């Protein structure tokens, strides 16, 4: 019986590949956009402007404090009510990018704040502009703190992408739902779905671990 079910599942491998592809494409686009946006938000958040900083802080708290499923429903079902038509793929990208940006913003802020004030003062004293201080002195040192949790966050976001199946995108999770209707063995099907995610995430987990070790050993420790 298991044998028959396995054969039947194997028959739907084109669908599974499509699902895996969707998961990877969706995650990849959102992570790249979310990283860029997250760094931008993090830098603005630590800048001098209280209003901007406060607004970003409030938005980040709001996103971190609500379920991703609710956010994706709001974007996919509510925005069209306001006249903004989105296909499921675009809605998924927007929701995931926003989520990624908010978490990455917090990681970047923590990294920037970990750089000793003396470093900023030294850069200030030698006449570097705001952007030069950030680019040449603060960010390179903040990256030591930022990189390991950043990669860890990527893993969480790839897994969170499974929520987009709720608005009908055929990602890996939704493929699981489709297949399980033909092959009534949920345990087997979703074991394979889980394995799919694991195969994508595991290299990143390893990367995060290696970065953590390398960063600890690299130059950049501030003496004193």
């Amino acid at each position, binding site marked *: 019986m298991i044998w028959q079910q396995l054969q039947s599942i194997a028959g739907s491998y084109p669908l599974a590949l499509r699902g895996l592809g969707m998961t990877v494409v969706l995650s990849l686009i959102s992570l790249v956009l979310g990283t860029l946006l997250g760094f931008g938000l993090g830098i603005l958040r630590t800048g001098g402007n209280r209003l901007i900083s406060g607004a970003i802080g409030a938005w980040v708290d709001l996103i971190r404090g609500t379920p991703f499923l609710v956010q994706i429903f709001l974007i996919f079902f509510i925005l069209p009510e306001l006249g903004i038509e989105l296909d499921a793929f675009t809605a998924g990208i927007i929701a995931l990018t926003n989520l990624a940006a908010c978490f990455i913003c917090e990681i970047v802020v923590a990294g920037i704040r970990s750089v*000793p004030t*003396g*470093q900023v*003062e*030294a*850069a*200030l*004293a*030698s*006449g*570097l*502009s705001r952007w*030069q201080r950030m680019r*040449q*002195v603060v960010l*390179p*040192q903040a990256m030591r703190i930022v990189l390991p949790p950043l990669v860890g966050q990527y893993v969480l976001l790839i897994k969170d992408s499974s929520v987009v199946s709720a608005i009908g995108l055929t990602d890996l999770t939704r493929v699981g739902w489709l297949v399980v209707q033909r092959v009534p063995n949920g345990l087997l099907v979703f074991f394979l779905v889980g394995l799919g995610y694991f195969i994508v995430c595991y290299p990143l987990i390893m990367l995060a671990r290696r970065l953590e070790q390398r960063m600890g050993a690299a*130059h*950049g*420790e*501030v*003496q*004193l």
Partner: protein
Amino acid sequence: MTNPSKNGTGMIEFRGVNKWFGQLNVLKEITLSVEPREVVVVCGPSGSGKSTLIRCINGLETIRDGDLVVDGQRLGDAATNMTRLRTEIGFVFQSFNLYPHKTALENVTLAPIHVRKIPRIEAEKAGRELLAKVGLADKVNAYPAQLSGGQQQRVAIARCLGMRPKIMLFDEPTSALDPEMISEVLDVMVAVAEEGMTMMVVTHEMGFARKVAQRVVFMDAGAIVESGTPEEFFSNPKTDRSRAFLSKILRH
């Protein structure tokens, strides 16, 4: 010898400057003029406001009232470009504050390349010369973590000199150093002074003051209590507070 009585020509001019940290009056009615090429040593007990005094000059601290004019520009004026002015003022920190992710040479060339827009090759040539001048020709590619405290502080001085500043400020440059490393840093500072740099140095190194300073300023509780030539100040301190201070630091 410079003439401190000349008015308005000072490289650094404090006129009735006050500063508060909350309720605490950390600088009280400071009036002080530093002439071009003059070397002024600032000393006093800890918490007397000496570091705050020199940190005001390059805008690391802001003043509440009074005038502070540096290189002809009044701080706090809309017309004064603080970032531009800072390029003319070198600042040496007690804790060095070298960029840990950059080599000694990169520490020295960063601001010349990005702020002065000097071509990299030229900046590196000048940077190597400066590092050789402070006795670190063999440490050009070392990272700060690979250098001793004395070596780091010499790189920090070279980093300031790389900008060809008009003024150099030193905030207790030898206080964080092991005793055997103090003289290597002081030697470099003496060399800089002898080239005619305008300098304000917060330090308790009285040997350095005797050797190169034209003036010693003694501060206590945020005010300038006494000011005079090193000769006058050390041999004949005028106030009880300066006598008490000198007896403490000169005892050993």
